[in-house]
């Protein structure tokens, strides 16, 4: 049985169907890539799964338990957490305090005092030496790691990563891709990642789902997906396929 199951999920904004009957399944220990052109509904998908947006229709199940439509803070406690494409650290809290706030909401999946669990997460993402800094004094790459640390501090079963690699210099991008793999291998979190940086998606993902105009248009291994004529049409326009 899949760990996270999304069935016929829809979300409309007025007349715009940002998500239109999307089905999706994430297996335990899997890294699932989500790609698609701008406006395909990828971030809306994360918003609905994480509880920031209520779904218009459809359901979300975590290990058989219905979580669709729950408020975000309860979904975090259930074990699903998201990061933001544009990082949103709490600016007046130190890096350690940022992670500590999140560590308070691990929902019984972790034991020990929140500050020490937060410190452990900072060690894991490589921010231990910057624990007492304010996020505003860090580089973008480091702030992306703060965003990751905060999500990891909730001891998630499912981690939703919204473009954590995009916008980074190649060396940092490689380091972060390696970190994402370690999150799956060493912390046991299953991951859905939205990413525009194709080499990263292709090398990290076990499977890839392609969204376009709120619909799932393809699914398969990275190699299958890039050859799919519908995917090429979505990215390059009809007739763009060689």
């Amino acid at each position, binding site marked *: 049985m899949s760990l996270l199951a999304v069935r016929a999920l829809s979300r409309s904004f007025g007349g715009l169907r940002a998500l239109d009957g999307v089905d999706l399944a994430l297996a335990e220990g899997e890294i699932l890539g989500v790609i698609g052109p701008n406006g395909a509904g990828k971030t809306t998908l994360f918003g609905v799964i994480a*509880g920031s947006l209520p779904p218009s229709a459809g359901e979300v199940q975590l290990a058989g338990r219905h979580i669709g439509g729950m*408020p975000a803070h309860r979904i975090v406690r259930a074990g699903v957490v998201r990061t*933001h494409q544009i990082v949103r650290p709490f600016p007046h809290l130190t890096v350690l305090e940022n992670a500590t706030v999140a560590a308070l909401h691990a929902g019984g999946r972790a034991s020990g005092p929140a500050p020490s669990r937060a410190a452990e997460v900072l060690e894991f993402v490589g921010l231990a030496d910057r624990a007492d800094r304010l996020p505003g004094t860090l580089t973008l790459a480091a702030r992306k790691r703060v965003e990751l640390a905060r999500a990891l501090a909730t001891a998630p079963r499912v981690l939703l990563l919204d473009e954590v690699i995009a916008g980074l210099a190649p060396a940092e991008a490689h380091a972060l891709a390696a970190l994402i793999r370690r999150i799956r291998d060493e912390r046991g979190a299953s991951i859905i990642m939205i990413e525009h940086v194709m080499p990263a998606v292709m090398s990290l993902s076990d499977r890839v789902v392609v969204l376009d105009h709120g619909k799932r248009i393809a699914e398969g291994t990275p190699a299958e997906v890039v050859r799919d004529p519908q995917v090429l049409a979505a990215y390059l326009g009809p007739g763009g396929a060689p």
Partner: protein
Amino acid sequence: MIGRIPRGGAAGCAAAVALLAAAPVVLDLTPYSHNLLTLAFLMIAGALAWNWMGGYVGQVSFGHAIMFGIGGFVSARLVLSGALPAPLAWIAGGLVGGVAALGAHPMLRLRGPYFSIATIGVGEAARLIFTYWESFTGGSSGLSLPIDPILKYQLYWWSLWLAAGVAAASWLMRRSTLGLQLLAIKSDVEAAADVGVSATFYQDLVFCLSGAVVGLTGALYASYFAYIEPADLFGFDRSIGFVLMAVIGGLGTPFGPILGAVVFVLLRQSLLATYPQLYLGLYGGLLIVIILFEPLGLTGLGLRTARLVRRLRASRSAARAA
């Protein structure tokens, strides 16, 4: 980051409280000073509790007079009925104030200016309701309480303990994981929800605690002045007073509202008699200056001065070394 006290700060605070506790006996205070200090202690407690909501959570309430008035009138009725000894009547007033604060739940979905405007409306509605509810509040002629002069004298210490207790609670709240979550809600309510912080729960909790303390403050105030009327306890001036004290002292800082309350009470008393119109103008001016130049109020000014002194000292010792 805000609110680290220097080493020995706790000892200093304890010494200040001890000094104030000894003052009436040692210094043989005039009734005027006795009065002024008691009022200052009560306003310190109220301003600190207001700051939990307005400063820590960032939800600026212009309606805290509701809880102040409810605490005052509930305790006054209990004292008048003779059913409870005064201290228990005060606690009951505080509890009812806390429960009444939970009524803010639907408003707490609003944030920022929308919340503030809603509290103005509800505050004014409450003032009118309690003014016309003559069987409970005595209407515009108010209530007189049979307060024993000894109890009135002792209220100096009760008020001091209350202020000291609320100050300690402010400090602990700021340092605790609760304080971190409140700051997270204040800076980004959605990002906070995305890491598991329920703004609804913590706002209700803090508003309830803040309302209970303000209710307790109102109860002590009612007994101390022995005469209360809805126009004073539920008045808009009362609500504005809490906002001003916290903002003048330093919004969101754990101890700033203490400074703000002292300045507020002193200015008000010294100007009210001589220039009754001037003091409101002065507050208005002070508020504009603070919001424009020093968002952390007197606390910010103090921190800035300390930094300046340190820099001057450093450059002087560097000059001497060279």
